[in-house]
């Protein structure tokens, strides 16, 4: 047992920042608000560094117990934090990327209303996210899990005056409820099965259980956990909230809906890898869902015109890749992709934010173009991310994506090929976005201007990380878990993957640089298929027709008019009417006439005396 590292300081610092900004922020100048926000995250980043350097290479996880939270029979749940190699990566990503995005947000949010409110929420998010990754038991993870959901809800609906923002926030919250439901059920099953929620105890006990060839209790737990992960990490069929979540400010999209929160699902699957390893059926489900999500989201991304929507679907798609890795038991590759994705997707979003900032709120790529020369720094940094996500060798995205696809190849050949095609599509739509935004002639009306240093600075740091971060973190990540297949010789596979990425870029260049208008004719040629994809496979409409409307109709006719009005109101009003009727009789006693009151007293006295007599005399 190593000495205490005061891990609690890591999440508490942003909480203090959130409290200060939330309570006093209105009265503080913007300088002070940004200083509080940034310094709290910086403090927690430095504290992470200090703890990690003190803890060394973490051969054994470092755990700290603070106090017992819930004690019920044999079940004891404490507020425990721990750091192991998985947590280490997550901590670095969350505090590091979080710090950069905080700095970026100071510049981005400069002109917005609710400056202090924004940073209060953002710091609150950091608190919950750090709680989530530090927690040593499922319930504490759930606290963070729900907390980041809350912060996400608050930040998606940050623009209080916009109805769509509020609707998007509610959508995110409600869809996440489904996932949380799964997570809660998983926790109940874990308590029943293992009698504890503590990671160490649960995983030790689970490690002794055999691999379930047929669905058993571990499969059930794993699948329920995965339902939770699906909600938080926007997988099929619960991904619909994430594209809408782009209604929030762009730094939020970058931090919460690309880099950190949405990877919580991957984190929990990796964390519970012991359980998933023993539930092959669940692993298959994870793989299929991940693959399906990757393909669907990638194809939708091809057709979108809103720059943030493109990157949102890209996020969904990349999350699908991470789950594919988990499904192939390559958890460390999944987490590796979490890390690299955090870098390059943060750049993509922050860069998109910079573009939007430069164009005064324009998000439609049809009204962009030729921005290369007008905002060169943004363009340059975005290029790094573009090449990274496309899988161009030498950039970190290629490393993790290669690992994932190679691991998938070990699991199933056809999934590998679908994954490769999806990687190609990924390269295609990101390139498309880049070409539409930065090349050609400028099609908009606003006058673009380069973003301030507080925005370009973090962009550059993240851009360099999306190039080199993969090499920096590779060993750190691979220390997590079982050896992955990537160490073998997979030259041909890697070649195929790289080729797919370059093919995607080339096709995009062909369609959007050399032959403008070709994309229109292709879209026309594909006709209904294009329309279907452009409408995001009409999943929202399907949910609306299949779920929302029946629920609404049921709520209205059965719950509201039937249950509420007839039954509950009937009972309530009936009680009221009965009371009023009894009161109508009883009020005759309250005639206001003193003698009648006296009569009651006499009657009562007589009855009490007679009662005494019946009970057995006055003694």
């Amino acid at each position: 047992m190593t000495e205490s590292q005061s891990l609690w300081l890591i999440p508490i610092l942003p909480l203090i920042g959130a409290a200060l900004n939330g309570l006093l922020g209105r009265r503080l100048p913007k300088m002070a608000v940004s200083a509080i926000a940034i310094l709290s995250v910086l403090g927690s980043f430095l504290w992470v560094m200090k703890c990690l350097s003190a803890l060394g290479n973490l051969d054994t996880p470092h755990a700290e117990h603070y106090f017992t939270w819930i004690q019920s029979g044999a079940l004891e749940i404490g507020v425990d934090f721990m750091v192991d190699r998985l947590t280490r990566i997550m901590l670095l990503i969350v505090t590091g990327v979080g710090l950069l995005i905080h700095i970026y947000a100071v510049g981005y949010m400069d002109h917005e209303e609710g400056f202090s409110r924004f940073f209060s929420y953002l710091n609150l998010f950091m608190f919950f996210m750090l709680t989530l990754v530090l927690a040593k038991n499922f319930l504490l993870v759930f606290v963070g899990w729900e907390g980041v959901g809350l912060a996400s809800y608050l930040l998606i609906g940050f623009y209080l005056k916009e109805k769509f923002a509020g609707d998007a926030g509610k959508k995110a919250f409600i869809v996440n409820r489904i996932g949380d439901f799964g997570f809660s059920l998983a926790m109940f099953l874990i308590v029943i099965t293992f009698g504890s929620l503590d990671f160490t105890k649960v995983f030790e006990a689970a490690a002794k259980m055999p691999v379930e060839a047929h669905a058993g209790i571990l499969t059930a737990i794993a699948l329920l956990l995965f339902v939770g992960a699906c909600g938080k990490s926007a997988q099929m069929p619960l991904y619909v909230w994430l594209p809408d979540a782009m209604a929030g400010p762009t730094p939020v999209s970058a931090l919460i809906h690309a880099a950190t929160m949405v990877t919580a699902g991957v984190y929990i699957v990796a964390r519970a890898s012991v359980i998933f390893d023993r539930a092959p059926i669940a692993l298959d489900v994870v793989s299929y869902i991940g693959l399906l999500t990757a393909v669907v989201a990638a194809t939708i991304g091809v057709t979108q015109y809103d720059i943030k929507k493109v990157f949102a679907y890209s996020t969904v798609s990349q999350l699908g890749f991470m789950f594919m890795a988990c499904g192939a038991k390559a958890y460390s590759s999944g987490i590796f992709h979490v890390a690299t994705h955090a870098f390059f997707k943060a750049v993509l979003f922050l860069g998109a934010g910079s573009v939007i900032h430069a164009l005064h709120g324009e998000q439609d790529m049809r009204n962009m173009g030729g921005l290369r020369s007008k905002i060169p720094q943004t363009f340059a940094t975005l290029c790094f991310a573009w090449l990274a996500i496309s899988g161009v060798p030498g950039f970190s995205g290629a490393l993790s994506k290669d690992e994932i696809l190679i691991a998938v190849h070990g699991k199933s050949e056809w999934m590998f090929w679908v994954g490769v095609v999806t990687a190609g599509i990924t390269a295609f739509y990101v390139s498309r976005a880049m070409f539409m935004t930065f090349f050609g002639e400028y099609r908009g009306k606003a006058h673009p201007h380069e973003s301030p240093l507080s925005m370009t600075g973090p962009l550059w740091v993240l851009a360099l990380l999306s190039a080199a971060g993969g090499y920096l973190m590779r060993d750190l990540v691979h220390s997590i878990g079982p050896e992955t297949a990537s160490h073998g010789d997979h030259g041909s596979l890697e070649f195929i993957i790289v080729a797919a990425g370059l093919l995607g870029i080339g096709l995009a260049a062909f369609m959007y640089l050399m032959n403008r208008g070709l994309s229109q004719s292709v879209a026309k040629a594909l006709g209904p298929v294009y329309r279907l994809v452009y409408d995001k496979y009409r999943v929202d409409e399907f949910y609306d027709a299949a779920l929302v409307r029946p629920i609404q109709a049921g709520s209205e006719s059965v719950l509201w008019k039937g249950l509420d009005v007839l039954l509950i109101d009937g009972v309530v009003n009936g009680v009221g009417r009965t009371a009023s009727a009894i009161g109508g009789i009883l009020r005759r006693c309250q005639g206001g006439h003193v003698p009648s009151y006296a009569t009651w007293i006499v009657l009562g006295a007589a009855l009490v005396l007679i009662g005494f007599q019946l009970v057995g005399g006055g003694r």
Partner: protein
Amino acid sequence: MIPMPNLDVLGFLVLATFAVLCGLSVILQKHAVASALSLVGVMGSLAVLYLMLGAEFLAAVQMIVYAGAIMVLFVFVIMLLNSGSERPAKARYFAYLVGIPSLLAFLGVISFFILKELPNTSSVQFGAFTQGGPAPVGRLLFTQYLLPFEVTSLLVLIAIIGAMVLAKKEID
């Protein structure tokens, strides 16, 4: 030979009869002044009964404070308000139909209690208990019961002020 009736017994019976008759008169007289005078009769007979029970001091206080001061106050108010006979009002069925039977039941049960639970009470003899004089009463009042006594003085003060405030409204 006519047995010489015991004076204790005779006195009680006479006084009790007188008290009950006066009490009936209180509640049955139509005119308030007549009721008040009947009440004085009740109080007077009770004063004598107190005397027979050995409460000399109380008997005197009963006559002076109750039959004297309080009843004078009553008569004064009756005169002031010039309250004549009650006018015949609507019958109060509820009070008659429920109240009186309950009252009779109450009386019956409590008498039954007294006779059943206290079958062997000591017989009253004039002069058998002589602790009710002013001296023992005063001694107890200013030692053991000093605090309640002072509190009652406060109570009386409050009553005086309250009565003045209530009655003063007339002038405003």
